[in-house]
């Protein structure tokens, strides 16, 4: 039995997630879309916190909300004339897209709902400590993630170089 507070929190988070993601893809002002995205990301971070993955939530906020959304805002400001709305979408493609998305929602939703395994309550768990996370990330034994970690670091390096090369003025 959860506390009422967590139920309320869940409701808010779920609602925010749904509403803001809908708004993010339907608004015609691109800057607003970025803002709604930010809220959605916060909601996602909240979900991680609710799942007791605090580190993950922190990373979500730091990287996504703090880093990526800022990048978005910068690029929007660089590429859009302020105040100009993007053209309205052709209603045909909007309807088609909506139909397809809803269809997908239905199909996937049915798949989810038909699994009774998913109707379980959250088992008890101690929140993994930073030490645990750090050790398993740096270990090479089973359940260790050193190799992907290093791969990611190489990827990030490549990304930095790539970003510089691509954005460089010729």
């Amino acid at each position, binding site marked *: *039995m*959860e506390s009422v507070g967590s*139920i309320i929190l*869940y409701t808010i*988070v*779920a609602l925010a*997630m*749904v509403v803001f*993601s809908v708004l*993010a*893809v339907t608004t015609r002002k*691109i800057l607003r879309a*970025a803002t709604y995205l930010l809220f959605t990301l916060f909601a*996602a971070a909240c*979900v991680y916190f609710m*799942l*007791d*993955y605090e580190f*993950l939530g922190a*990373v*979500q906020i730091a*990287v*996504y909300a703090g880093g*990526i959304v800022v*990048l*978005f805002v910068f*690029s929007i400001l*660089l*590429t859009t004339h302020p105040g100009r709305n*993007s*053209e309205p*979408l052709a209603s045909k493609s*909007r309807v088609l*897209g*909506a139909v397809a*998305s*809803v269809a997908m*929602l239905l199909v996937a939703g049915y798949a*989810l*709902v038909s699994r009774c*395994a*998913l*109707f379980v*309550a*959250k088992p008890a*768990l101690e929140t993994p400590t930073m030490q*645990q*996370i750090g050790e*398993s*990330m740096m270990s090479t034994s089973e*359940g260790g993630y050193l190799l*992907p970690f290093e791969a*990611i670091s190489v*990827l*990030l390096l490549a*990304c930095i170089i*790539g*970003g510089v090369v*691509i*954005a460089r003025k010729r």
Partner: protein
Amino acid sequence: MEIKAIMLLVPALIMFCCGVYGFITRRNMIAILISLELMLNAVDINFAVFNRYLWPDAMEGMFFTLFAIAIAAAETALAIAIIINLYRSAKNIDVRDLNKLKY
């Protein structure tokens, strides 16, 4: 009342579908990128939820999400670099107009 796994998965699914909707209907490249982020996040949530609810002792899902976030950051950074570059040369970031390199 308990918060069951499905209760988290469904909003994530809706979020994903929104991302799909945005991806296939929007024409501004940044908007498309935003939709992409929505989808990624929805998937990330799924990983975490499955990990937490079904295999609470393991940490694969969490790590996967962690790495996915890192990769998403890298990908966004590169994509935005490309978009800005494109904008510089074409003064436009509408995907339908950017077909100079087609065929």
